[in-house]
């Protein structure tokens, strides 16, 4: 390997790594606030890219049907929840939040299908279309179990991966897509070529992380999220509703996922089930950060991006083995650094 190739691989790795970092931040956000290890998160990334691809091809994105299905189920769950407790006056509000709100971008996409909107309109619409997926899933499958153990929530979230990939196949079909490049400029630094796409990926990841940081530090909802992740019961006592923070965490994380999808779309062909592997790689990064630290996650994700890039040069077939194999020494290191295993009860049945 010459230094030039090393540099190219390095740049490539940082670009992919910055996407994993964004996804990893979303995962840590969800985990720290709701204790859910949200395995299907990668699917949101893939769905976002596929949505944009469908729009570019002038088709109606399958996301419209996906959202409609999820919104319908969420409305049923929400209405059932309130009616069982005899609070019929809350049903209307629930239906607006979980039925009407997510359907607005879907309706827009449905109306404008085939109209070939300019890219600067397509991208926000694609993002808006995808963002409700996270909060809807949270409402349907996870909120009823909000008090369950981390382990049970993990098992549920794994079950959800099954369902979401099935829905993905149903609504997006089996073909793979690659979106049009967002920008095509190429920069030369001596012998090294850096595409503007790469710079865009890294820059967007950096800006999004910065905004997330500002949100946590400077705004009241951000502080509420942080409070919940530090101490759920304490947060509840001072009047922070866990259901609200959970919905907000999923919404924000979905937004990060959707942005990641738009960024990664032009660089690789994505299928309905590609998200799973993307999500898991981001996980490896998040675990390097201990599933709690945002900077640690970003760093871990960058490492995974670099590792993948160099491993694919060495043996492209075994790059996945390398990436997932790394987790084992990482876990070993983490378990050594944890002085004492927490006394959490590992129960499946309640």
């Amino acid at each position, binding site marked *: 390997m010459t230094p030039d190739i090393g540099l190219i691989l390095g740049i490539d790795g940082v670009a992919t790594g910055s996407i994993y970092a964004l996804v990893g931040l979303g995962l840590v956000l969800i985990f720290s606030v709701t204790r859910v290890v949200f395995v299907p998160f990668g699917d949101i990334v893939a769905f976002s890219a596929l949505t944009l691809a469908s729009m570019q091809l002038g088709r109606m994105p399958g996301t419209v049907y996906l959202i409609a299905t999820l919104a319908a189920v969420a409305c049923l769950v929400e209405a059932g929840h309130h009616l069982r407790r005899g609070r019929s006056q809350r049903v209307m509000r629930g239906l607006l939040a979980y039925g009407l709100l997510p359907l607005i971008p879907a309706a827009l996409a449905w109306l404008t299908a085939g109209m070939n909107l300019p890219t600067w309109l397509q991208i926000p619409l694609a993002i808006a279309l995808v963002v409700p997926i996270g909060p809807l899933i949270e409402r349907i499958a996870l909120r009823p179990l909000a008090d369950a153990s981390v382990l049970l929530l*993990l098992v549920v979230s*794994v079950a*959800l991966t*099954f*369902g979401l990939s099935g829905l993905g196949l149903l609504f997006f079909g089996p073909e793979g897509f690659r979106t049009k490049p967002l920008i095509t400029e190429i920069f030369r630094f001596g012998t090294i070529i850096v595409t503007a796409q790469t710079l865009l990926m890294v820059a967007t990841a950096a800006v999004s992380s910065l905004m997330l940081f500002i949100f946590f530090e400077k705004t009241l909802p951000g502080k509420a999220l942080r409070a919940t992740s530090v101490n759920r019961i304490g947060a509840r006592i001072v009047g922070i509703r866990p259901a609200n923070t959970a919905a907000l965490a999923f919404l924000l994380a979905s937004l990060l996922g959707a942005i990641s999808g738009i960024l990664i779309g032009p660089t690789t062909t994505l299928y309905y089930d590609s998200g799973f592997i993307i999500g898991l790689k981001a996980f490896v990064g998040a675990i390097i950060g201990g599933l709690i630290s945002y900077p640690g996650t970003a760093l871990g994700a960058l490492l995974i991006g670099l590792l993948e890039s160099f491993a694919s040069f060495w043996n492209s077939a075994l790059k996945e083995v390398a990436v997932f194999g790394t987790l084992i020494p990482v876990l070993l290191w983490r*378990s050594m650094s944890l002085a004492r295993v927490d*006394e*959490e*009860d590992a129960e499946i049945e309640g």
Partner: protein
Amino acid sequence: MMARVRLVLLAVTVISLGAAAPFYASSFTITLLNYIGVYALAALGVVLLTGFGGLTSFGQAAFVGIGAYATAWLTTAEAASPWLGLLFALTLTGLVAAVLGAVTLRLGGHYLPLGTVAWGLAIFFLFGNVDAVGGHNGIADVPPIFVGPISLEPTTAIYYLIWGIVIIATLLVANLLESREGRAIRSLRGGVVMVESLGISIFRIRLITFVLAALLAGLSGWLYAHMSRFVSPTPFDLRMGIQYLFMAILGGSGHILGAIVGAGLITLLQNALQDVLPLVFRDGEQLVVIVFAIIYVLVLQFARGGVMPFVLRLVPSGKHPAIAVAAPLPRRAMPQRGTTLLTAEGLMKRFGGLEAVSRVGFEVKAGEIVGLIGPNGAGKSTVFNLVTGALSSDDGTITFLGQDITRASQRHIAKAGIARTFQHVKLRPNMSLIDNVLLGVYPRTSAGFLKGALRLDRVEERRARFEAVTQINRVGLGGDPYGLAGNLPLGRQRILEVARALAADPALIILDEPAAGLSRREKIVLADLLRGLRQEGVTVLLVEHDMEFVMGLVDRIVVMDFGSKLVEGPPAAIRADARVREAYLGSVA
């Protein structure tokens, strides 16, 4: 007795219907039953690991794959006998599991399942990318199994092998779970401090359980390879690993038969959905996985125990055997009364900036009852945790029976002869009284996994059970030793902890607020019990807030305040001490 007869009749009917199946069922049904048997074997591993051992694994399919690939490769590339393939499959699966387990089993909580996802994927990608095992095309023409001259190629022939193995494996695992090591496996569900305090090595139990689960998977893989005669990576991917976990959960991970029920339900359901859905919907095939996801989420939300609890309600339950008198277990030689048993010198423990224990020293002589008292937050429980090894001290030394145990592990200290109870009760609420107390007997017995599974441990087991029941009766909890510990009121759960500690035959028993939550009468019984122990030469060290209880019982008192030892002496002197009054009531000045 009637219930038992009905149970036996039911079992005989099911088994004979099963044995005759090839004579009346279609060959398609037999094929389906074969798959169910093969899946049930792998799911049995998950039930053992997850349901009983509390270790969630999504990676079971990877072990099935290792078993299948090992035998497929050996019997095709090397043209070896499938029986040699079995040996190779089990050896390889066991080795890989031992290495992976050694690395990941120290992890707590959600890290372990995430780790299993990672290596489940890594192993799957490895199958698909190594040319020696056919890459994504897999290995074809795997030979059938021969038993002597009889070929097990026909589905009806291998049917008997598969189900024979399933039945034997289920019986062995059931036996194991009712044995000494099996109880240790069941005790893994819950906190780790209690288990180690009983002298049980969590890591060893976890590792062996993990390897056993993997061996069941490897066996399933061996059968799979020679049944379908073809292996490719797909049946061993992560999706299948998740499916095995859900077989166990859907069937009922808390019950050994949950594996068979779960494997049966999921296989039949999958089959039915694949037939029906495409007739109703255009994209029916794709809906199967969605329907499954919905079922899983609903089961986890509403019936976490799975199907088995509902089945068990319909089946008459067998009676528990009465516990027979057996030869008592050997007891340890108690140290000479009055000799120094335990010495603590200059103990220090800091939690961040807080000095919870600062330069505390005291001595306990064999055969006395010593009380450790002090206001809330004085550091009494921390001292107990330092002595028993639940926490390690920052400075100072602890000597027990002339041995330095300052840096010793909880397990080592337990074996040396210190048994304890906890301020916040640590029992296994889902295990019976007798099983909880039998955990205390663990270090005094020796039957291993193999003996337990083969029921070669019965003589020792009878003695252990007799000992456990003796201790339960002694603390006054006799009546229903098979009742669940979680059904006792809190005060009595504390007393059950005392019985568990006594079952370990300790030289020193450390009790953390044993009288809390007891009625006046129960306190008198407890005090009498502790006096009886002193009579036998057992030494008692206790923390207690009930002064009447302490003053009337103990020989000596150590008073702590703000992490330091305030004063030490006989009860009468302590009662008269001005410093003690000040600590409890505040200064008058």
